[in-house]
């Protein structure tokens, strides 16, 4: 009885939008109230499955998610290990390192957009000081994706670091004492003791960042407008929802496709965690 209101709210907030999106995906419709609403059945799904642009977006998303999540996980864990040491000044560094997470993603994207500006951006200026010629970062096929991955890594590595640092703090001291007695080196202790103990947390953080990165839209929206093969799936959803005419039904189809894709990729990880 006491949980009923919570269930009702969850149902309204979570389930209703999903089922409405499914309904939209079965129609051709537009944003405006008098835009025609036409039943098309599974036509949108067939179109999405056979549209090369959709599969290019999936590939772009896969590259972005793979690159960003892997880098954030490795870097975040490494920084957490450093912060877990007893070196001087670590508490202050920890506090400062968390700042990027507090910035709104769209603001971060804007800042990086200007930093990568070929004419007056700081990135080209710094490279110029090292004798490297300027680059068109955000339109080059080879550089645009690394640029947006870098922006994402800069913002979300501190989040990974925080979670891993918290996990490291909970590891019992006695296992390391036992490892020392057994004669394990520091690297061996990390590999055979720390990593296995951190595995559940690592899986959780990978799952969270994977789902988050798949939904990311603001970086190509602000920084590249899809140039340089950065038209990820959420950006394609945006274009179909708000730029192209009468394709919001197709946008809903792509959004549902995205949910299915994320579920398929995330399910094995979630099972290992026990979710």
């Amino acid at each position, binding site marked *: 009885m006491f949980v009923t209101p919570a269930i009702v709210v969850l149902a309204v907030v979570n389930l209703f939008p999903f089922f409405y999106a499914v309904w939209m995906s079965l129609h051709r419709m*537009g*944003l*405006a*109230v*008098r*835009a025609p609403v036409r039943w098309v059945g599974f036509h949108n799904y067939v179109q999405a499955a056979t549209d090369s642009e959709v599969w290019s977006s999936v590939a772009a998303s896969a590259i972005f998610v793979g690159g960003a999540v892997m880098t954030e996980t490795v870097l975040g864990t490494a920084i957490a290990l450093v912060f877990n040491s007893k070196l001087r000044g670590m508490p202050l560094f920890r506090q400062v390192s968390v700042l990027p997470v507090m910035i709104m993603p769209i603001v971060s994207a804007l800042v990086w957009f200007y930093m990568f*500006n*070929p*004419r007056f*951006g700081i990135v*080209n200026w710094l490279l110029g000081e090292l004798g490297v010629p*300027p680059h*068109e970062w*955000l*339109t080059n*096929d080879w550089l645009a994706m690394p640029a947006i991955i870098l922006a994402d890594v800069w913002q979300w590595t501190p989040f990974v670091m925080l979670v891993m640092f918290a996990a490291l703090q909970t590891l019992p001291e006695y296992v390391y004492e036992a490892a020392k007695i057994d004669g394990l080196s520091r690297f061996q202790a990390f590999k055979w003791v720390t990593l296995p103990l951190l595995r559940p947390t690592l899986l959780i953080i990978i799952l969270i960042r994977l789902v988050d990165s798949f939904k990311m839209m603001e970086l190509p929206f602000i920084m*590249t*407008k*899809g*140039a340089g093969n950065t038209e990820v799936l959420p950006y394609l959803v945006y*274009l179909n929802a*708000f*730029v*192209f*005419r*009468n394709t919001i039904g197709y946008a809903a189809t792509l959004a549902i496709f995205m949910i299915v894709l994320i579920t398929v990729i995330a399910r094995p990880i979630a099972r290992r965690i026990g979710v």
Partner: protein
Amino acid sequence: MTDGFRGKVRRTAALAFASVLGWAALGGLTSALADGPLSGGQNIRLLFVGDPFAQIMQKELPAFEKLADGKIQLDVVGYAETHNKTLLNSQQSVSAYDVVSIDAVWMGEYASDGVLTDLTSMIPGSEVNVADFVPSVWKMGQSDGRQYGIPIQPHPEILVYRKDLFGRDGIAAPKTWDDVIKAAAHFNGKDGMAGICWNAARGAALGQTVFHLFGDAGIHPLGTDNKTPQVNDPRFKDATKYLMELMKYSPPGILNMAWDERVRTYAQGGCAMTYIWAGRAAIFEGDPKSPARGNTGYVGAPTDGDAKPVSPIGGWFLGIPSNEAKDRVKLAWNFIQWMTSADMLKFSAAHGNGTMPSYSVMRDPELIKMYPAYPIIDKLGADGDLQGWMRPPVPQFEELSELFGTVFHDMISGKIAPDEAIAKAQAGAVKDMAQ
């Protein structure tokens, strides 16, 4: 007395004069418009794009509220958000906004989707002075002969150039694409500047450039019936060559350059010429530090050499959502009449809005001193050179703009050849128009 000190004195005097002018205008207006459109302390809810006319209102909101004699609830959002919010607002049973700003190119979409109130029957006998607007501008507020918007910020896209440098090197003002390329090649790399700045960023920015090139070549982008894409018109091939040539003399980062960035680059002395929405000239004409201030020449959009000169006119209009509450329609209409009146347009111009909304603004002697482009634009209008047909207000305009801006961006990036770009753009446009 040093030159620097004299300059400071002059600048201070100019600022003081402008302030006196502005406040005198406010004082005069306050007495002339004792009963604002919101008299009785009513409130009005506005959804405006973040362009000069709205920015001025944001900055001077207390003054506007005093003049309007009521409360103004102003939502200023970006270009895409204005479009999206207006469409989403149309789904409500009652509109959340009384007046919305409309880009001229959306008129067809909004009219066919029933987003806006038809103002045609309201205009006769109203305060709107139709004769004060350039005819081609007035027409852009229509769809199928019905008026849906009243002009608030129309202006043409023209070419501006550093007349001091052109004069120094004996180069005439560009009139054709060939002239532009020759001048750009001449200045590129000299005095630390590139030859020319323009909208080349992927998406709507480059899409707009492409539409305007149709105009320069005298080609109706969708045929004279606005139904049949003409990207594969043989004359358009020269436009692709022009774009590729422009790339050679453009500044670094041109593939990301759009809207005000081209003007700011020009204002900072980064390029010798730039395409510009004429009202944005205030960015350099109003900046005492800009080397372009007082040194800028203004010409209509250069042609391909064969077509009649036309400068594409675009801009913003004010309209009333079709789902506006019945008892608020009169309030919204009164507000639109007031905001688009000669006095209010001059007030906005006096406070930094350099666009060309009406003849009375463009011919005001005091405003001409602030905006040297006015007489040139006035003449273009009088000669019938300000036209909107190259920006067809069809419902598919946004999609076509995005399509052209994507395909031709791949072309100027060197990913695809011009012939392939033309074929892709034509095929995509035919598909979009068929929907």
